[in-house]
Structures are given as C-alpha cells and as structure tokens.
C-alpha cells in the first residue's frame, strides 16, 4: 500500500483508531470497564444516539442538517408511551409514525417550500417539542408495563440488548442503502453538487425528501427505545441530541457540506463520543476530577478538539476517500 493511500485510509478510519485507543485506555485504567454489565449498558443507552446519528448522517450527506432529531425523539417517546397500552407493536408503530410525521414536515419545508434546512429543522425542533409537551401535559407519560412494550428497550436477545440489535440492523440497512442502491448514491450526489445532480436527471428533491423522512423515522424509533427503556415518554428529553449526532457524524469523517460520508464511521463516532461519557464516569470513581463536575465539559471539549484536529490533519494529506468496490 502506498503512503498517500494509507494516509487517506487513516483519514477515513481515524475515528476507528481513536475509538480503539479510548477503549484500550479504559480497559487498562479501570476495573470492570470491559465488564459485561458495562458494555451492555453502554450499548443499550447509546443505541438511541446511534439511530439519530444514522438519520443525521444521511441528511448531512445531502448537504443538509436536521436540528429537530432530539425533540422528535422526545415526541416519539411520548406518542409511543401513550399508545403502549394497545400493545408493544402499536406503541412502536406510533412512535415511529410520529417521527415520520415530523420528518415529513421537514421534507416538505426543505424540498417544497425551499426553506434552508437549518431553519426548517430549527423550527421543527421547537414545534415537535411543543407538541410533545402538549400531548404529555407537561409531564412524563408512563408506559404500559403489561403490554410487553418495555421489552423493546429493556430486554436482551441472544444475551445482547434489543436496542443494540435494532441499531445494528439499522446501520446494516443504511450501509447497504448508501453503497448498493441508486438512491444511496443519489444521496451522495445531491450533497456533492445538487445542481449538477438535477441536470444529470436525478430526482434530487425526492432524494432529499426521503432523507428527511428517514431521519424523522429513525428519531421516532429512538424515541420508542427511550420510552421503553426508561418506562416513560419524556417530552423534555432529547435536548442537545442533535449536536451529539452532528459531532458523531463529523468525527466520522462525513463532510458537512455533503457529498462524502460513511455510515460505518458514523457508528464509530457515536461509540467514541458515547464511551467518552462512560470513561468520564469511571474516571470520577478514581476521585481525580470529581471535585468539579465542570471539568467534565472542559475535558469533553478538549477531546473533541483533539479528535477533530487529528481528523483534519489526516484527511488534508490524503485526498477524500472514495470507496471502490
């Protein structure tokens, strides 16, 4: 392998490297870090972010952005909780449906009314949150414990948390869509040069439409897991999820300007940032930084800084990585 090729590979997989290093660090420094309990609970919790980040990744690949994912998840959780007494599947469908509704409005605002994605989804972030609060009457909504709805978030399948299975499946589908379907290639093309894509005769608007819809649906699904994992629909949850997702996507090497992106690296980005929180909690147990909780944000910021600079240095030397199959 030639040097530039290696560097460009590192550029796109730098995040994987960082992830490995962080895990290694945690394993060496803390007892029980790689214990079964910790691994499964980290995965169970972060599966919500993984789903939201997957949707975000698609949106960003088209050159857009979706700020509404957090409140959409909150809305999804409320709707799912309200519907959960009717049965697990109905709760699931209702939550995803609520997300799809928000996604649909985003899609219409962006592709039909031509409103900038940042503004359109910012507005929907407010609207979804307001709707969630209205539906929930400003309070958390209990889910039904009888209907089996809580299994979705709390149970295991083959010893592995169900939410993690759901996230993995979503990523496999996402990966196939990006790499092996024309819609997926269209997503990248639209982000790379929307005007050209249109002139090339691709249905740019339909692609963007689908992407916002998918992002909404995935956020709704994350909401279902939120409701089911914690036993309540939570109208005020989801604050800042959009930034977490954006950070994960970008740390994964996806360009915010669109046109280049990787589903797999996004997952690595989610795990990287998610595990960082976990590491910070373990570090607190050591008593070094627990004196002031505020150091946590400083450390998180610094960590992001290091990863992002590393990314930038690696990818500026190799050229943009395009996958060849």
């Amino acid at each position, binding site marked *: 392998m030639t040097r530039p090729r290696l560097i460009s590979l590192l550029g796109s997989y730098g995040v994987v490297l960082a992830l490995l290093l962080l895990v290694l660090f945690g394993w060496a420094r803390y007892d029980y870090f790689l214990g079964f309990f910790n691994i499964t609970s980290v995965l169970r919790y972060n599966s919500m972010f993984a789903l939201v980040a997957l949707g975000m990744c698609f949106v960003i690949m088209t050159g857009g952005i979706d700020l509404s994912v957090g409140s959409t998840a909150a809305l999804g959780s409320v709707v799912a909780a309200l519907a959960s007494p009717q049965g697990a599947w109905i709760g699931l469908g209702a939550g995803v449906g609520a997300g799809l509704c928000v996604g649909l409005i985003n899609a219409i605002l962006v592709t039909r009314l031509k*409103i900038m994605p940042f503004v*359109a989804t910012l507005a929907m972030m407010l609207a979804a949150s*307001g709707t969630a609060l209205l539906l929930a009457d400003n309070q958390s909504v209990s889910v039904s414990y009888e209907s089996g709805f809580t299994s979705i978030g709390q149970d295991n399948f083959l010893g592995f948390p169900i939410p993690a299975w759901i996230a993995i499946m979503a990523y496999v589908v996402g990966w196939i869509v990006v790499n092996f379907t024309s819609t997926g290639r269209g997503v990248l093309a639209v982000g790379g040069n929307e005007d050209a894509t249109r002139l090339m005769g691709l249905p740019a608007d339909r692609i963007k439409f689908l992407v916002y819809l998918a992002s909404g649906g995935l956020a709704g699904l994350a909401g279902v897991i939120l409701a089911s994992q914690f036993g309540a629909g939570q109208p005020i949850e989801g604050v800042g999820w959009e930034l977490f997702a*954006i950070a994960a996507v970008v740390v994964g090497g996806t360009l*915010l300007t669109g046109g280049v992106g990787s589903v797999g690296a996004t997952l690595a980005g989610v795990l990287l940032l998610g595990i960082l929180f976990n590491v910070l909690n373990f570090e607190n147990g050591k008593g070094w930084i627990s004196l002031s909780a*505020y150091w946590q944000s400083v450390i998180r910021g610094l960590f992001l800084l290091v990863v992002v600079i590393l990314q930038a240095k690696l990818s500026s030397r190799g050229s943009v990585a395009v996958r060849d199959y």
Partner: protein
Amino acid sequence: MTDTARQQLISRPFDPFDFMARYGTLIALALLILFNFAFTRNFATMQTLNVNLTQVCTIVIVAIGMTLVIATGGIDLSVGSLMAISGALAPMIFLGKIVPIDNVALAVAAAMIIAVGVAGLFGLFNGWLIARFRIQPIVATLVLFIAGRGIAQVLTNGNLQTFRVPQFQWIGLGRLFGIPVQVVLMVLLVIAAAWMLKRTVFGRQIIAIGGNERAAELSGIAVSRVKLVVYTISGLCAGIAGLVVIAINSSSDANLVGMGMELDAIAAVAVGGTLLSGGKATIIGTLLGAMTIQLVRYTLLANGVPDAAALVVKAGIIVLAVWIQQQGRRA
C-alpha cells in the same frame, strides 16, 4: 448615454415576489405590531417599547457577529458559552477576586476590557481552528460550545456571583439621553457593522469568501486572516452581550448566561434574510429579524399562550418569515 445606463432605465415591472423578498421581514414585523395594537393589552406604551428594546439588545449584539460569520459561509455555536466566560470573568475582576483593585472606575474598566478581550481571543481560537486546520465551522465552534461553558463554570466553580456595582451596571441599567445604554450600544454596533459590510474592503471580502472561497483566495484576499477577524468579532460581540446580561441581572451565573443564545442569534439572522450558506448578508435585516422574534415572544407571553403551544406558534412564524423571504429569490 451608455448602453448599460440605458438598459438600467428600462424599468422592471413591479414584481410582488421581489418586493416581498426585499421587505419581507419588515412586513412581518409590521403585521405583528398591528396585531398587538389590536389584541394585546397595554401595548401602545413607552414601557412596552422599552421592555422590548432592552430585551432584544443581547440577541442583536450577538447576531451582528453571527451575521458576519454566516456571511463567510460559517457558523458560530460558541457564542452562548463565550457570553458565559465574559460574564464570569468581569465580576471576578471588578469584585477584586483575582487582584484587588482599589479604584472602582479602574476595576470596572479593566473588567470590561479583559472580559470582552478574552471572549475575543476565544473567538480568534475558533477562527484559528477553521482557517488553519480547515475544520468545519459547526464542529470547530462546537468545541467551545461544550468546553467554553465548562471553563466559565470552572472559573467560578459554578457559583453565582452577585454584585451591586453601579459603575459597571451602567451598561445594563443606565440611560443616555433617556435611552437605555444597551440600546444605544446596540444601535451603534448595528450602524458600524452595516456600514462596514457595505462600504469597506473588509466587508466586501467577507461576502466574497462566503460566495466563492477559492475565487476569493485567487483574487488575493487573505481568506484565513478575514476568517480569523470575523470569528474574533463574533467572540467580541458575545463578550459584550455577556456583560450586558449580567449587568441587568446584578448577578452572573456561569451555568446559564447565554444559554441557547446561538440558536436565537442564528434564527434572527435567518429571519432577517441572510442566507445561511453565505455570500450574502444584511445587518439591518438581522436587526429586524431579531425584533420580529422578540415581538413574537412578547406577543405570546402577553396574551397568555401556554409555553408548549407558544413553541409551536414560534416555529410557524419562523418558517413563515423565512418562506416570505425566499419567495423573491426563487422567481
């Protein structure tokens, strides 16, 4: 008469879409004011004007910097955190927590200059990440969005600082010719920025970079330097806004000062008609945009719309305002 001059004389027919795009924000604002005259109790008073103007000040000041940043094709998520840093630092200095300064005037001056200066430096840091490492602005500024508030909290150990220092609080509570000082400050900054953007080389360079960065670079524009300056200005604006907020409240809470400001400021810029993709900017638009958002907030509160419903209404109005703007551009 030259050929081009003649062509200019051929008047274009009245185009309602163009008109909407040009005056969309103004129309929205006028409609809101009319609505309030009709439905909101006690609206037509000086005090209402006063309340709205003083409340909109900080958003406008931050949004000025944000407009410039957005004009270059960037974005600055760190403004709220920078407000917190400046808001945390200033009282530490004038209350003599760092080094005791006997002369109050001196202490206040030092506090203001250092606090705003530090915010500017952090802005410069944002610019450095973006210009030097070509990190995408949203992520580069996300770093300080997260860490910046942490820094402010670490500085104060998260504690609330309360104070009564009239010399300092003048910028939040004082009046100049009967007008609140912060309003005067806001107006001055708006005029300066609008003039700069329209009439100076630097302003033109900002727009060029947002419009086509490579072309700008090849035309000899020092793209990196312009970006550094623009993010620094954004930091300075945030720093000033931070001081205004704590001055009004007689207290500084690193945990909350500037919370959510980035989205308010960006919304003001967008509603004001500046394209978020860069290459275009209007400071007056931003002022009108911020006022629209402020007035929406006032209207909903004054008429007792429940908070949850207010969120939905606010969303609708933002979309509507931006949609009106967009109409002209598409034709």
